[in-house]
């Protein structure tokens, strides 16, 4: 193969690559998402933002915690529909807040606002006995007619506990199954935003 043919092939290759990649940015419409932390005091530790049809939350978009009262912009977001999750860590537990189907339009700014009232709550079940183990723990919304699945994988020993976080706020029923004696039931326990409810069961 002589030098002219080689140069021709290389130039053709370069032209092909340029044609494929060139002009991509000019046709890729984007918008901006602004996260506003209106919490009283808690910093947002993580902010996940991913297309609505994606099954995972993806990477944390924050390089450092977003302090209360501040906002953070994510620019060059391809237009589309997105889901978002923000996460805070408090003194007692970890909590999340969500928003779904956020539309991002070309050249526009969409603001998502985090407030104290929008977060999940937590529930801690403490085994208050000295001689019985918890072998089953069921937690379901009071409006549900079934207990759903067991929340524990292994038994909870006396004075041990199970700390469940990321519980959507609302009223819940609790069923505790023991290795001895009858089950215990606790009804209409209120799980509140940014609050850890500790139930000592026996």
């Amino acid at each position, binding site marked *: 193969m002589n030098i002219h043919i080689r140069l021709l092939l290389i130039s053709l290759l370069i032209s092909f690559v340029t044609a494929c990649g060139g002009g991509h940015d000019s046709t890729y419409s984007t918008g901006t998402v602004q996260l506003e932390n*209106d*919490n*009283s*005091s808690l910093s947002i530790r*993580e902010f*996940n933002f*991913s297309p609505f049809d*994606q*099954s*995972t939350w993806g990477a*944390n978009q924050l390089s450092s915690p977003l302090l209360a009262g501040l906002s953070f912009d994510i620019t060059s977001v391809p237009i589309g529909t997105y*889901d978002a*999750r*923000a*996460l805070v860590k408090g*003194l*007692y*537990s*970890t909590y999340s*807040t969500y*928003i*779904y189907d956020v*539309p991002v339009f070309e050249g526009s700014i*969409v*603001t*998502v*606002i985090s*407030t104290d*009232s*929008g*977060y*999940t709550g937590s529930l801690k079940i403490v085994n*208050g*006995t*000295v001689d019985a183990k918890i072998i089953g723990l069921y937690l*379901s919304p009071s409006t549900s*007619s*079934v207990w*759903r*699945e067991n*929340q*524990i994988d*292994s*038994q909870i*020993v006396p*004075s041990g*506990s*199970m*700390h469940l*976080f990321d*519980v*959507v706020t609302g009223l819940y029923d609790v069923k505790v199954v023991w290795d001895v*004696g009858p089950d215990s*039931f606790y009804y209409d326990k209120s799980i509140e935003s*940014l*609050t*850890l*409810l500790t139930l*000592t069961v*026996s």
Partner: protein
Amino acid sequence: MKYFKMIFASVSLLIFTNIVIAENQRTLANPNVNTEVRSTEDKVNDSSDFTSINPGDNAAKMSSASSRDKNKSVTTQVTGVVQLQSNNKDVVKKYNSFSKKQGEKKNKKNM
């Protein structure tokens, strides 16, 4: 003799009943402990009216309604403020709330 048999049977039944009851009883670690405690983070109690300075027309508040929750993040997964213990004494985990599986029916008459 007849009365002796009756008394013997009654005492036996009483002992047996006590044994069964004792087997099904649980002993409280501390009867005086408050069984329900709420620990609230530092927040405004009613923040529903807590508005941003200039949220814009297309602003939307986030909420805790996570019924369409996605899988864990590919980078980090929250384990709570307390790390997962190697034993099962104090376990921290995410509430499993989104299964469509049918569970055992509740019977609130057992309250």
